[in-house]
């Protein structure tokens, strides 16, 4: 089945003209038609437009246009938080009404320039706020391994679509784990680049100092290829960093045909991540992965990240504070839905009261509160200071280790509805992923095993130095080559 191929397998077949891009696209569309009713990864997709893009890719392929287009003819779907010109953009919310993007996000421009077929709007927690994709105005996304369970979030649609082979690869966004956690829970690879590595222009902002865009893929090599396409400085995002983009895919191959050696690489195992709430099966899988890495020549060093326990509290001040400011723009004046009022204030209040869902309201109120007069120093400023301590923990650890290895999520996928009435419990799903965003470093999640019954994927997280994506990808690739977890497919 063509929809099951990886980017590297597919581009090789396309280059040899063994298959056409139209056949691949059709294969993905057929898969969507047969399984998306059960998992609801997509909010919408335009099949005719996707096939038209595939035909254009086939024409270029016939002319030998594959050079410098590493994704020519490859279907890639995007989370509903990224602008794609002339396509709807809703952020999983009602408040954007019938918004149609007037321009392409920089990452979408880059995907198109690389030859990708950019199609579909992948479901997500409203405005990327959530860990389960239950907070979408367009309905819940389900985990393809067990449709009574959540796929993780907020990029649950992206993770589920890739895991179930509806698409070859996808983009999501990660503010506190929204790429890595759903990738872990659905059994695919998810990469959150270093803050500033990828332009955020055309990504609807949630928390501007934490947001990064990154890929969901079926294996590590594809993650390297996707990162190579989307990374780089952009004058339209003043926080993107003018640092050259290495050839990530080439770094994996190295000079040896067996891939690069990771012998001598030092990985830190933070003792603070072995917490009480860690599921025994997750712990066993991560322990086994650590042993596997050791057998590949990696040196494991126990490290300490002493402020780990404060990351969730810090995050749930900073992220809502930034969100409350960013979401002020949804006021019913310039775009999206409007609910009329007698004066502008009433119009704003009604529009926002009806347009936003419960979790978004909760975070706007929390964020407004911690920034309000009299509370700013006690909450927001204090959180920013603790953020410094958390970042310093990592920078200090990276003086002795090349990367850090942890579980991605303390448990495998939980049941739909299990945590929806307890926001604090939901927030604590992300205890292992939040600190990475606060510190601005990079992280990747890759499959490292399954729970027994029911069979649910478990993710291994590697955290790297600022702009240390090459090291992460090399270590992840070496592990992946030594295991078969990434080849397992959900029963759907």
């Amino acid at each position, binding site marked *: 089945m063509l929809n099951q191929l990886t980017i590297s397998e597919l581009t090789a077949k396309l280059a040899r003209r063994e298959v056409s891009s139209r056949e691949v696209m059709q294969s993905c569309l057929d898969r969507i038609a047969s399984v998306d009713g059960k998992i609801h990864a997509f909010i919408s997709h335009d099949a005719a437009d996707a096939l038209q893009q595939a035909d254009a890719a086939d024409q270029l392929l016939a002319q030998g246009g594959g050079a410098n287009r590493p994704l020519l003819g490859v279907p890639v779907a995007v989370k509903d938080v990224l602008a794609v010109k002339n396509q709807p953009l809703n952020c999983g919310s009602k408040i954007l*009404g*019938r*918004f*149609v993007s*007037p*321009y392409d996000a920089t990452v979408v421009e880059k995907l198109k320039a690389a030859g990708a077929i950019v199609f579909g709007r992948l479901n997500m927690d409203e405005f990327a706020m959530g860990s389960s994709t239950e907070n979408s105005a367009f309905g819940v996304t389900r985990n393809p391994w067990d449709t009574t369970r959540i796929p993780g979030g907020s990029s649950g649609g992206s993770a589920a679509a890739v895991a179930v082979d509806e698409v070859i690869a996808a983009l999501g966004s990660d503010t506190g784990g929204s790429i890595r956690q759903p990738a872990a829970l659905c059994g695919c690879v998810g990469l959150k680049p*270093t*803050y*500033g590595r990828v332009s955020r222009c055309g990504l609807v902002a949630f928390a501007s100092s934490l947001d990064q865009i990154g890929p969901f893929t079926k294996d590590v090599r594809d993650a390297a290829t996707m990162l190579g396409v989307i990374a780089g400085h952009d004058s339209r995002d*003043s*926080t993107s*960093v003018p640092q050259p983009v290495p050839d990530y895919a080439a770094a994996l191959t190295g000079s040896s045909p067996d891939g690069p050696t990771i012998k001598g690489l030092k990985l830190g195992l933070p003792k603070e991540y072995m917490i009480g709430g860690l599921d025994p099966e997750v712990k066993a899988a991560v322990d086994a992965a650590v042993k596997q890495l050791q057998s590949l020549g990696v040196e494991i060093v126990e490290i300490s990240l002493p*402020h780990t326990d*404060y990351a969730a*509290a810090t995050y*749930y*001040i900073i992220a809502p504070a930034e969100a*409350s400011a960013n979401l*002020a723009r949804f006021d019913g*004046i*310039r*775009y*999206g839905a*409007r609910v009329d*009022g*007698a004066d*502008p*204030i009433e*119009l*704003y209040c*009604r529009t*926002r*009261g*009806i347009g*936003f869902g*419960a979790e978004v309201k*909760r975070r*706007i*109120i*929390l964020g*407004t*509160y911690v920034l*309000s007069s009299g*509370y700013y120093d*006690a*909450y927001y*400023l*204090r959180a*920013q*200071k*603790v*953020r*410094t*301590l958390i*970042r310093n923990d990592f920078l200090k650890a990276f003086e002795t280790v090349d990367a850090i290895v942890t579980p991605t999520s303390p448990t495998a996928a939980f049941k739909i509805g299990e945590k929806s009435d307890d926001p*604090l419990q939901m927030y604590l799903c992300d205890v292992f992923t939040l600190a990475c965003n*606060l510190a*601005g*470093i990079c992280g990747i999640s890759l499959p490292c095993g399954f729970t027994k019954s029911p069979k649910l994927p478990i993710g291994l997280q590697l955290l790297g130095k*600022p702009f240390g994506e090459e090291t992460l990808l090399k270590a992840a690739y070496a592990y992946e080559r030594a295991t078969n977890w990434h080849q397992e497919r959900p029963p759907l």
Partner: protein
Amino acid sequence: MASAEIDIKYVAHLARLQITPDEEKKLGAQLGNILGYIEKLNELDVSHVEPTAHAVPMVNVTRPDEIRPSLPHDDALRNAPAQANGLFIVPKIVE
């Protein structure tokens, strides 16, 4: 930090967010719970710590003050809920 008692109605008004009495009650309990958890930051002495606003501190990113191509007027207005003569229509602001 103050005790975890938020005047939800007041904060919702600051945020220009209409909420129902039911939402007010539910949010009050939930946010009290969350703020109770956040109190743990008080355990740390941060008196000599500088705040981090951005993990990658890029400062004063500027460009030449020159006119560059930007979104066409019509495209910028296309998603407006109400527009006329190239302008957004809003309720009366000044009597």
